């Protein structure tokens, strides 16, 4: 079996102390760094003419997507393919879920087909944790409600790492609907574990109560305060249905209070801009900001495949002895 390169980290299999990737709350800094280092090496694989390695030949990966997702699903599928794993996928419309089968039974059926890894996207927080209890497969969380999206956070952190010297000196602000954001929560866990300082900013109606007690963060409802001394600003997508729920009055007002504009970039000449996508242009970020040279949104997407290859590589059971 060929490791993508011969560098040190991959000679230490088992350096992750976890069997699953459910959330990052118990992942330690050295585990996160190991995932990032591995992903960095896979990025190099992706730059080769033949972008496939035989590492996971014979390993099967099932994607269970109970919620629409284009990019995450595509990214996991590509990642599994480039590691030569077999992939099957089930999405809510095509699965027996609509026939009333429980998640438990769906998972056990998938497991009976001897699937080694389940990649789960689900609208309910904790669904991957539940799944991990009722199957023997390795579970990778591809987003569970507002709770966690660990691979997205890790790829965000990977993207940041290429632009900074050290996480210890890094100040990141996450701006938007924090309450409903799994991306925000997982980013906070990854970043604070690595030593970065995180500020969460949004309208009071979209900041969870007791957030500063819940996580090692500072919260503010003023965009200026969030951008002051900030190295990287990550804007989150605003879901229009939150307006119907009365959490903000209008996209117009949201943009005026929390939208990042070219003017902000002028005032903060070193500020980098991220966004987990898809961007509502003109709401979270103006066109000029999305397309600005200091926007690193597209490199987030490329890193997504490499990071998911790393997660599969480090967590999937190996078939090479079979």
């Amino acid at each position, binding site marked *: 079996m060929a490791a993508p390169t011969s560098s040190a980290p991959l000679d230490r299999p088992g350096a992750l102390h976890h069997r699953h990737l459910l959330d990052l709350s118990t992942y330690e800094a050295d585990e996160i760094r190991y995932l990032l280092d591995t992903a960095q090496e896979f990025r190099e694989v992706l730059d080769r003419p033949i972008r496939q390695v035989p590492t996971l030949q014979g390993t099967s990966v099932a994607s269970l997507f109970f919620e629409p997702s284009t990019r995450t699903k595509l990214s996991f599928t590509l990642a599994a393919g480039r590691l030569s794993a077999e992939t099957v996928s089930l999405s809510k419309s095509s699965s027996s879920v609509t026939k009333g089968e429980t998640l438990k039974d769906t998972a056990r059926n998938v497991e009976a087909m001897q699937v080694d890894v389940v990649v789960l996207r689900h*609208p*309910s927080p*904790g669904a991957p944790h539940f799944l*991990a209890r009722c199957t023997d497969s390795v579970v990778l969380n591809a987003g569970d409600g*507002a709770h*966690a999206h660990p691979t997205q956070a890790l790829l965000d952190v990977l993207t940041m790492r290429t632009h900074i010297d050290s996480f210890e000196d890094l100040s990141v602000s996450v701006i938007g609907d924090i309450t409903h954001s799994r991306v925000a929560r997982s980013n906070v866990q990854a970043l604070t574990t690595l030593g970065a300082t995180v500020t969460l900013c949004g309208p009071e109606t979209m900041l*969870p*109560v*007791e*957030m500063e007690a819940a996580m090692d963060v500072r919260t503010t409802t003023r965009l200026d305060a969030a951008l002051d001394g900030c190295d990287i600003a990550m804007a989150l997508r605003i879901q229009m249905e939150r307006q119907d729920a009365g959490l903000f009055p209008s996209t117009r007002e949201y943009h005026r209070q929390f939208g990042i504009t070219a003017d902000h970039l002028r005032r903060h000449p070193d500020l980098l801009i991220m966004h987990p996508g898809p961007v509502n242009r003109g709401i979270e970020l103006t066109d000029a900001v999305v397309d600005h040279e200091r926007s690193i949104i597209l490199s987030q997407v490329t890193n997504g495949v490499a990071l998911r290859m790393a997660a599969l590589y480090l967590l999937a059971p190996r078939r090479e002895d079979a």
Partner: protein
Amino acid sequence: MTPHLLLRGGTLLRPRPQTTQDADLLIRDGTIAAIGDVPDVDDDLPVYDASGMLISPGWMDMHVHLREPGYEHKETVATGSRAALAGGFTDVACMPNTDPPLHTRDVVEFVRERAEDTPVGVHPIACVSKERAGNEIAEMADLRDGGAVAFSDDGAPVPTAELMRRALEYSSMLDRPIINHMEEETLNPSGQMHEGAVSARLGLDGIPAASEDVMIARDIELAALTGGALHVAHISTARGVELVRRAKARGLPVTAEVCTHHLTLTDAAVERTGFDTNTKMHPPLRSAADVDALKEGLADGTIDAICTDHAPHASYEKQVEFAHAPFGILGLETAWGLIGRELIEPGVLSVAEAVRKLTVAPRRILRLDAPQLAEGAPARLTVFDASTEWTFMEDDLRSKSENTPFTDAEMVGRPWAVYSDGQFVECGAA
């Protein structure tokens, strides 16, 4: 049937006025025939060695869900009664959120008929509103005549202040309390757990403490307006305890109960168990500060009764994603061991005070006579101790369902046996 029985060597604990007495207790034809030193009796008389054990009037859990009619796959009157006996309870009051709900006299009588074969006294609580729909008050007088001990739309609050006002007025003429499920539902349309630091971390929609406090405050003012008896179901918040404390100080006819799980677990359990749905109930597990306030409220008498809100759900209903799972957990079998561990051993309540909250207090709220430990009285009693340390196992459950977070939990104090309606049942035997 066990019409005759000698309980040898126990200690009688009478909750009010509080006395203890080391004595044998002889039962003849289901009635307490003698208390004191009972000399050797005929060979045919069954003797139970109660040495080292306490004997109190039979315990009552004033808030359980027996699920019959309509949800017999979760629990029945028969299986729920076995759970009660396993927990040391001779009496339960069952909530009306069945299908059909206990909103007409025939359904109330049906439940009482189903309970005829069990030694457990099953006291139905009937609906406040027709169809339990929260619009018009039910036929409360007829329901009372059919055996209803109180009125509640439990599982849901009485939604409008107007309906609550009329319910309190009407029930006051019947001398029966209104038991309200205290949640202002518009404050937590999709809430899954207590709103606080843990829900913030887990991304689960929160149920703020204010949802309960607002409703308790509303109902206390309506009790003041009407003079009707208000009972606060499963109180769970520090502020709620304070509101009830002040209401009592004003002399209002307000009482309250607290569930064993709200004294035992906090919202941290949701995270610690990795979203185990047996940590999901209404009201939700609250913060540590709330738990402390509940204990204070018990100790100073603000909270009258201890109950369980025994809420069985089938495994296939609970073994799902957290947000999809129904609210509620079992309680009858684990109640006393948790009371011992959380209240008696740490000195929050004495054994006698705890027993009072399971015997005299719930019956006073429901206008029932408490059983007496006196010669000539019907024998209705619980044999227990407050010191045995043991571990609760799934095998200890007698409910039809298994939805408890307390499997493998440490318990202090154990119910040993129950005598009721001429039957002697060792806890866990049936």
